[in-house]
């Protein structure tokens, strides 16, 4: 029964048939990144594990300060140190533990096998260097190309990210481009060495909505064309629904839920995910023809706890409508609640099957 439902969904959306990825390219295993500050230990990433299949798109979702970006920086070993330190776990790229690599080996991996796109396209490009040379830099560095070869490849990459007149654009400076164009240039830079994994850290946050859609479309299209696996970090569940196959939900440095994207949307098993989902305005409310018009948009009460002062029990308990004594006393186990659907909540059973409208 469940299988047929899944199959129907898959064929409806035209997405790849969902299956546990056989061919894992990147494995994050019990990663712990702590920040040692005056206020105490900040557990920015605590015991986070996930796997990324070849060519898969994985979404990491959570609100600001939940550890999404630090997870990404930890994979590339770019956590600012001090105060940050990766204190435990493993990050395996095709079986090779990146945390054991020395700095030289890491530099070979960054930009070459794992690339990253940042939030701020306006300032992520160097204002005094032409975009062609900036794209070419990684190629000269990692592929040993000559200046001329790199420039030709840069033009090719600009055409690939659909920047018009790439021959002219390649000689221009970042201030001559719009925000959306700069993010395209960043994508061109990140993909120029044909990396196995692309980490996109809120790639559309600084852009306006119409441009956001174009950039996401571009990332998905290039991912399919080049076979790159993508980790998409975002706080926008709409973005996740459109682009990813599997989603990891993080809260206060911990992974609280992981599931296939449709499963997660239809059947959230953690109250935090449920809260996130119900704080999205539904189309009925927007169009005004539903009986729900009078209904207020639900919000999650309270605030994210300070990461240096987490409660003993579930970090979400103070904000959770289902919280009881057990939640406050002990952290819930992270368990598989249904096939391929993991969650860390004492009350997942009560939540399960509750379909969000």
């Amino acid at each position, binding site marked *: 029964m469940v299988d047929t439902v899944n199959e129907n969904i898959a064929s409806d959306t035209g997405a790849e048939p969902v299956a546990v990825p056989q061919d894992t390219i990147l494995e994050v295993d019990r990663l712990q990144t702590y920040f040692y500050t005056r206020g105490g230990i900040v557990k920015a990433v605590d015991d986070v594990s996930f796997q990324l299949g070849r060519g898969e798109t994985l979404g990491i979702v959570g609100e600001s300060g939940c550890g999404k970006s630090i997870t990404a920086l930890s994979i590339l070993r770019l956590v600012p140190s001090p105060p940050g330190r990766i204190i435990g776990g493993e990050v395996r790229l095709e079986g090779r533990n990146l945390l054991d690599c020395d700095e030289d080996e890491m530099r070979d991996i960054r930009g070459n096998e794992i*690339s990253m796109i*940042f939030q701020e396209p306006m*300032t*992520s*490009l*160097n204002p005094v260097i032409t975009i062609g040379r900036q794209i070419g830099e*990684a190629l000269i560095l990692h592929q040993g190309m000559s200046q001329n070869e790199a420039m030709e490849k840069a033009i090719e990459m600009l055409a690939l990210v659909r920047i018009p007149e790439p021959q002219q654009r390649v000689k221009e400076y970042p201030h001559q481009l719009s925000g959306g164009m700069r993010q395209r240039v960043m994508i061109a830079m990140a993909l120029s060495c044909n990396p196995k994994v692309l980490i996109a850290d809120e790639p559309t946050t600084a852009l306006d909505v119409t441009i956001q859609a174009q950039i996401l479309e571009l990332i998905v299209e290039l991912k399919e064309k080049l076979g790159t696996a993508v980790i998409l970090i975002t706080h926008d569940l709409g973005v996740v629904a459109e682009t990813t196959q599997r989603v990891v939900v993080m809260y206060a440095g911990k992974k609280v839920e992981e599931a296939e994207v449709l499963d997660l949307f239809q059947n959230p098993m953690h109250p935090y995910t449920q809260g996130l989902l119900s704080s999205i305005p539904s189309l009925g409310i927007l169009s005004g023809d539903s009986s729900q018009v009078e209904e207020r948009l639900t919000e999650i009460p309270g605030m994210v706890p300070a990461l240096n002062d987490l409660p003993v029990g579930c970090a979400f308990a103070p904000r959770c409508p289902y919280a009881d004594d057990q939640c406050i006393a002990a952290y819930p186990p992270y368990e598989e609640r249904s096939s391929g659907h993991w969650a860390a909540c004492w009350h997942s059973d009560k939540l399960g099957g509750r379909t969000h409208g």
Partner: protein
Amino acid sequence: MAATIDHDAELAKAGAGVEGKWGAFLYFCRRYPLGAAGGVISLLFVLAAIFADVIAPHDPLATNAAASLSAPDQSFVMGADMMGRDVYSRIIHGARISLAVGIGSTLLGGLLGVIIGLMSGYLLGWFDLVMQRIIDIMQALPLLVMALVMAASLGPSLENTIIAISIPLIPQVARVIRSNTLSLREMPFVEAAQALGMSEFRIAIRHILPNTMAPFIVLATAQLSSAILTEASLSFLGLGIPEPHPSWGRMLSESAAEYVRTAPWLVIFPGIAISLAVFGTNLLGDAIRDLLDPRQRN
């Protein structure tokens, strides 16, 4: 009552319709007439230095007892000194020395300052701490006093004069570059470069250094004129360029006390040369600063 606005005049003032290198040059002259004047003066000195052998009517080192202390006339346009050497020729050849010292020490001091500033600002830690304290000490001494000490300990020669003047120029450059580097190293494009697998050295040279060049150019033009002036002062005190090479400062010092009343041309013309050279480079430097600093535009 709205004031009538002459659109064409406003556009011309803003530099619209400026085409090509020549047009841009003419616009610069109209917009910064003083800077253009400074540029012309500086250019004259550069030309004088390059073509000194052609322009100078006499050998600047040739003595002529018969012409000793002769007043300006047709053969000696600016008169002759005590040994009968032509002042005009000596001033033209002196431009070589002044420019060599000015440009040489600015470049040397600037290079050292940029290296120290970049390393301090990027590496931080103990290197920064030690370097900044050394620079504190250097900054506590006036430029001339330091140059004096350096020149006295190195001995008089052209190279030593350049070195002596360049050392006191380091602190200011190092401070400016360091403060710029401090803010630039936090820019997202540095993080992006790290994510592309670039080494720290490469990031410092390829990404941070080019971004610090605008303030450096402004500072360097200001230092050029103070280097020329310091050379004149050193030579005036007998510590700069040795005899018999014509240095403006030495020409002044040789004649100031003895001949200022009897042969004033020996004092006036080198004095004018020094003043003009400093004035010219200062005007040019101000214009470049205005041009590079958007906040100064109006």
